[in-house]
């Protein structure tokens, strides 16, 4: 009927496939930077500004801060709005960032596996959330990330390029089933003391962002316990965990006590436990370092993995790090993050090899 039809379809498909290939290459070569990209992990001051034009064609463009005026129709209460048709600058909109986030996420998921201990998977690999997602539903309930993940899985199985199909769509169920009891607990410990400056905070948030993104997207059911600490530790909601800005001294043992309680409780119900601590190791004193070391030993008795991640731009190990180096156990890992580049290395060290 139309004289162009099939041939043209292939033309667009060729361009699309080529873009995907370039994108994959660009992502792989910029992955270290993207992992600590504030625009992707959220919560930063710079909003939607990407510091790496990884996906964008090179163009003369304006510095973002100079966009004085941008028009939109009257916002309603929570309208974020993405780039306005015609009237927008050419910064990426939220949709574009979400899309880029998903590509980075896919790339990381491709590289990583959950650690295996004694030959058995750390915990079950039943897909998270899927139990509460439906293949049919209304558009506002569309779960884009899960839909993309489903498409990725299917395409990988079939050896096809990733493309969303009707069958991949996942909708949030309006009447969620009772969630199955989680069979794994992840304890995320974040140091929010005064010595954790803006740069260290970014590294910490990046580390946990991608970690949570990974375990939540591909595995489950699981529970994540978020704990922040300075001289005192307490459990917080996820949002507060990632937003938290505090100051003051540090008493790491307070956090480890909370972790130990959580680990013991989880263990008593037969669940697996994974503990991750991100800190600069700047602790209150030698006596607390020793107390902390002993607590780590106790936690290790009731957990499958303890990862101590120390952000240390330069110099020797901290007092805490030195104390913990005395701990010897196959499931105790210490990792160092020196700078932005180091975040991906640390995650790779935990979850896989860099080969993908």
């Amino acid at each position: 009927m139309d004289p162009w039809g099939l041939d043209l379809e292939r033309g667009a498909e060729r361009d699309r496939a080529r873009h995907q290939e370039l994108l994959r290459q660009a992502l792989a070569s910029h992955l270290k930077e993207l992992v600590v990209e504030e625009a992707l992990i959220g919560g930063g001051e710079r909003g939607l500004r990407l510091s790496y034009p990884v996906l964008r064609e090179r163009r003369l463009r304006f510095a973002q801060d100079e966009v004085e005026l941008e028009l939109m129709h009257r916002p309603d209460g929570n309208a974020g709005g993405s780039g306005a048709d015609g009237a927008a600058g050419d910064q990426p909109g939220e949709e574009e960032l979400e899309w880029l986030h998903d590509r980075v996420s896919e790339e990381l998921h491709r590289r990583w596996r959950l650690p295996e201990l004694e030959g058995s998977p750390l915990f079950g690999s039943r897909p998270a959330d899927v139990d509460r997602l439906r293949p049919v539903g209304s558009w506002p309930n569309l779960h884009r990330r899960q839909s993309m993940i489903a498409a990725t899985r299917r395409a990988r199985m079939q050896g096809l390029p990733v493309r969303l199909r009707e069958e991949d769509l996942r909708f949030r169920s309006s009447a969620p089933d009772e969630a199955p009891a989680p069979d794994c607990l992840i304890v995320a410990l974040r140091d929010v003391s005064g010595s954790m400056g803006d740069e260290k905070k970014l590294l910490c948030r990046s580390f946990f962002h991608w970690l949570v993104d990974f375990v939540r997207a591909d595995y489950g059911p699981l529970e994540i316990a978020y704990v922040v600490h300075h001289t005192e530790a307490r459990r917080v909601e996820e949002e507060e965990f990632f937003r938290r800005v505090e100051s003051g001294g540090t008493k790491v043992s307070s956090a480890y006590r909370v972790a130990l309680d959580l680990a013991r409780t989880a263990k008593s119900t037969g669940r697996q436990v994974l503990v991750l601590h991100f800190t600069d190791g700047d602790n209150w004193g030698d006596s607390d370092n020793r107390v902390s070391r002993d607590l780590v030993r106790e936690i290790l008795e009731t957990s499958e993995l303890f990862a101590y991640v120390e952000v240390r731009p330069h110099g020797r190990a901290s007092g805490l790090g030195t104390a913990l180096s005395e701990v010897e156990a196959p499931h105790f890992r210490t990792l160092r993050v020196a700078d932005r580049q180091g975040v991906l290395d640390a995650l790779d060290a935990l979850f896989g090899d860099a080969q993908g």
Partner: protein
Amino acid sequence: MRRDELGRRAQRLAQEFGLDGAGIQFFRIPQITMQELATYGFLGRYGHWSRGKTYHRTRMQANLGLQRFYEVIVNTEPPQAYVLEGNGAIEDVTVMAHVAGHADFFRQNLWMQGLAEGAARRLPLHRRRLQEYGARYGERPLEETLDRALLLEQYCAPFGPEDVLGAVARGGAALQGWQRNCLEIVREEGIYFRAQQRTKILNEGWATFWHLRIMRALDLAPGEYVEFATLHSQIVALAPGRFNPYALGLAMLEEIAADYGAGPGGDAPREALEALFAVRRYEDDAAFLRNHLTQQVVDRLELFLRRGEAGGRAATVEEARDALLLAVGGGSRPQVEVEQADAGLTLRLRHLHDGRDLDLPEAEAVLGEIQAMWGAPVQLETAAAGQRLVLRHDGGAVTRRTE
């Protein structure tokens, strides 16, 4: 068939209203082809991965139900209108009424003159030519050449002093013959599509203004009218946090008609029509906004400022106009003119600073790419933080000099 009957009457009405919309060729295509057409602007246009990127996202959005294209019209002679397969009768007739306005605009607007003739033949020819280059010189060298040419796609103009892409195509010492031809092709198509970009608000407003009148004059049955009204309200819907060029163009044209006593969507007196047809003849979006944006329109469309010190409140007409002028046509891109382009000598470019500083690292990277085509040093004069600044790339390093 009701559809055919209404379609014929809509076309006749368009003619009676004075629209130059006769002889449009209609094609019915599936959604997937529509998505491709919306991405490329033309079926059978040359390919590049950057279009693949847009195409992919268009498809994603359409698959998620976020976007639907009812029609795409292509500026050829005669104009080609592509209609979505499976549209209902009223959707089809609305599209016919709408594209009559577009066809009239393509034929009569001064910025569009001379572009339609031969386009249907030349664009596929360009595509074939580039395919031949790919086969003969390699796909990667072709892609690299197009990457660099497309960098300057926005810097081409049919009139006035020489544009940047034209200057590089003519005097680029590092270009081989076939690469020069690639630049010429990108430039020709750039000019072709830029004319539509710089008239988007007016063109869409014009087509919407007329489909409204044509559909109202059709004496639709009540059910049919409700269907049309629903469709129309989707087209001009003011989604909070976004900006709708159809709604703005329509509101501005209605305002002009109202000055002569016409009601919204209603019959316009002769003086009103003369004024409207003159706007359609002589103006692009920039002129349209300068001459006809009013406070009433800004208020009715609830235009708000998003950013800057004034962010989060209703815009005044001056603010809205300034913001739109910086966004329409080429306004969202830095404007650059050629100061000196003698082959073999330094290519001197000047950024027409409009208060917005350039992204300097990106500008330096762009200069490097231009230099790779030009062969000799390339420099760009701009300003940063109020100071005159000259970026210069000599093939090895880039230097910044403030003055």
